[in-house]
């Protein structure tokens, strides 16, 4: 294990002593207390397509007979595919996505995966989050974006430099990719609820309460859980004040679709417009585990992607931020080539990843999966290691050396204009 619990503890203690130096000063101010430094001025928005997206029905190999043979119920007829090259096209509900692709704003990296693929959602998800194919699912350890945050962002002291968003339903559970050693990412599920509330009957006592809370979360301890809770509490106080002050800069004019991804990407736009210093933003769209009755569920999900990406891009253009934001979408695996008897697909292996933004050199990258040369589970054999996509983003977008973060050297795929 590269990073032990003790390492985290050390990081936590270090930060703890920094940020509690004078809690009363820190927390009494209601103004925007942070200089909001963002060292590169660039933002990475990561979109997790949770549950295993059926890449073959997203980016459709419409000239491949094997595709049609394997999917009598689920294959998309060639006539309705939104053709984007001589042999590839998008699902018919993805017209807006296709339009962005045609404008060269989207790169599709085909057939990404990793060696000895694990067909467990939980294991494979952990592998993508930690950029480590040998990781175990259950251990609380560093994620690839957390490691990046430790290297580049922890010194800023900005509790909003790494943000996980939720859609107001559920709880915005922190993805494993964001787990860091030296910083606590802000997890924000709903802007209105992201504030520390005190008794409305006695507003004059509020500062006393906030200060008591801050002090009782500044106790020294050698217990990891205890320290983690304390640091999270202090960062929650800090980041909530900063967020509430900053998000008022945004006025909505672009219409986002009313789905989970649309809600989250609009929140991302609001954070970006607020110049709060966020450099990594993570959002999640769930529901991709389509074992049965896949057709309508998958259509709905792909519609959400297509329309939300489009709205987000238009919004960034309007805000003058389109040059400084890069979006990357991934899923923990693709799905089985052959459909099952439930009009669905079982767990698969490789699949496409997507990158969107003005900085992107649009188009298709990598070879499409070979649908006749499958592994012994009936799944595709990957072509591009997903860590090459991370590596390209780290080096060409976030301008950092990918090797210490990814634990090895990976090919630069060249989808970013430098």
């Amino acid at each position, binding site marked *: 294990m590269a990073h032990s619990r003790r390492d985290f503890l050390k990081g936590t203690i270090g930060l703890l002593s920094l940020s509690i130096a004078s809690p009363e000063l820190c927390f009494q101010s209601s103004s925007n207390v942070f200089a909001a430094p963002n060292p590169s001025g660039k933002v990475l928005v990561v979109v997790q397509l949770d*549950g295993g997206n059926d890449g073959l029905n997203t980016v459709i190999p419409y000239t491949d007979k094997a595709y049609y043979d394997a999917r009598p119920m689920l294959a998309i007829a060639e006539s309705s595919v939104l053709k984007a090259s001589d042999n590839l096209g998008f699902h018919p509900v993805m017209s807006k996505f296709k339009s962005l692709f045609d404008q060269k704003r989207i790169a599709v990296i085909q057939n990404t995966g990793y060696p000895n693929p*694990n*067909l*467990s*959602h*939980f*294991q494979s998800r952990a592998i993508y989050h930690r950029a480590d194919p040998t990781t175990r*699912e259950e251990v*609380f350890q560093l994620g690839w974006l957390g490691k990046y945050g430790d290297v580049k962002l922890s010194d800023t002291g900005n509790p909003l430099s790494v943000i*996980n968003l939720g859609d107001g*339903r*559920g*709880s*915005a*559970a922190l993805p494993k990719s964001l787990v860091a050693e030296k910083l*606590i990412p*802000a*997890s*924000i*599920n*709903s802007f209105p*609820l*992201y504030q*520390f*509330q*005190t*008794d*409305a*009957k*006695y507003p*004059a*006592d509020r*500062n*006393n*309460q906030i*200060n*008591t*809370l801050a*002090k*009782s*979360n500044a*106790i020294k*301890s050698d217990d990891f*859980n*205890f320290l*983690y*809770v*304390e640091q*999270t*509490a202090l960062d*929650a106080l800090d*980041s909530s004040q900063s967020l509430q002050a900053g998000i008022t800069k945004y006025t909505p004019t672009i219409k986002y679709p009313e789905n989970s991804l649309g809600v989250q990407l609009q929140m991302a736009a609001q954070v970006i417009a607020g110049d709060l210093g966020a450099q990594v933003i993570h959002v999640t769209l*769930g529901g991709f585990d389509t*074992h*049965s009755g896949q057709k309508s569920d998958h259509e709905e999900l792909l519609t959400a992607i297509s329309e939300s990406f489009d709205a987000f891009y238009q919004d960034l253009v309007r805000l003058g931020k389109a040059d400084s934001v890069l979006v990357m979408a991934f899923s923990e695996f693709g799905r089985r080539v052959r459909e*099952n*008897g*439930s009009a669905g697909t*079982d*767990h698969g292996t490789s699949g496409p990843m997507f990158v969107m933004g003005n900085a992107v050199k649009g188009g298709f990258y990598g070879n499409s999966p070979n649908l006749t040369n499958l592994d012994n589970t009936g799944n595709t054999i990957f072509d591009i290691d997903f860590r090459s996509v991370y590596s390209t983003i780290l080096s060409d977008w976030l301008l950092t050396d990918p090797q210490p973060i990814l634990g090895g050297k990976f090919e630069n795929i060249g989808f970013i204009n430098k």
Partner: protein
Amino acid sequence: MCAAEWNERSVAHMLRRVGFGATPEEIKFYLDMGQARAIDYILNYESIDDSEVDRQIAAANLDLTKTSDLILWWVLRMIFTKRPLQEKMVFFWHDHFATAIFKVKEQELMLQQNQLFRKFALGNFQDFLLAVSQDPAMIIWLDNFTNKKGQPNENYARELNELFSMGVGNYTEMDVKEAARAFTGWSINRRTKEFQFETNQHDFGTKTFLGETGPFNGDDIVRIISGKPATAQFISKKLFEFFAFQNPKQSTIDNLANIYLTSRFSIKAVMQAILTSDEFFSEKAFNSIVKSPTEYVVGTLKMLKATIDTRGKAGDILNSLSIQGQTLFNPPSVSGWDGGIEWINTSTLLNRFNFANTLSSNRMTRGATIDPKALLSNSKATKSKDVVDFFLKQLGLFDVDVLSNKTLKKYLDQNDDGSKGKFTLTDANIDKKVRGLIHLIITLPDYQLN
């Protein structure tokens, strides 16, 4: 028997783990019993009369065809039951065999599954696994009703192997495929909502599963899985880590796994071994687990003797549980909640703090309310220091740092402008400062831990 001292602190620890916390009166009840008898009493809960909880729930007049009322039904059970371990086991199994209403869509079936968990809470794991494999909510949740001969659906077979019994690494992809074939035709009758074996959808052919070959059915798969050392290890470790602490020694798990196998898959035997171990009462175990939102909310309502008016804004409790990260009957996926330290992020923690504020500052009769004055009437506390000590104990906290304790005392004494004043026990101060104090105790880092 255990070496640890038997006192209020250790009893409070035990009841946080085998239940959802305890009031000082409950702690005294178990303390007076002595350690051996108390553990025996907790484990052999069938002999405890729990009919009062049914009366309390009946009075709430819930509509169990509504998810919110269904959740409330369970929350009230957790608060009022006299069989803490049974309810805690149901909570454990709900996370283990995680099934969600968002896909099952029928409250009745979720309730039925919950009662199944109650029935098998400390039962025989092989029988339990078979019952779960035939449970209608589970069959819908993991698509087994569409699992047909010739074109199997792997969803149930995979999760049975990966999450419900052995864990990743103890079976091959071929085992998943073969198990899926064995479960073909295990469906439900949509009208009666009961398990139904559809002969014409079942693959009667020969399968090879975990090294054994035969014309296997789901029963055979469950039988083979239940007796595997990997299952013994997986279940023992999960139980130990849920009830005692993370990352136990391998010898501890080996011992429990051995008990599981020699007792022919008795969960009760494993639990008895855990609860009577020195490790369970060791310092390593104390306060080592992050409270789940349910433990946080249910424990708080219980320890503060909250009144819950379900006709009113009880929805606040449910909404708060959800935004803290845990909607009962609606786990995020089949692997349940990640739990542990992953319960904690800036959003879920703020939502915990705001639940504490909503509860402590609710002066209406609707929803969940507390009566600080009535609680204090059980004590002689009048000075700020004693009031702080009283409420820390009321909330089961025996290890709060001296500095934190002083900070809370200072808060009680503080004037609005932050200057030093002097707390006196007046009704006005109870309404303002004592409610504020309760809010702050529930936000302590200590209180986030079990």
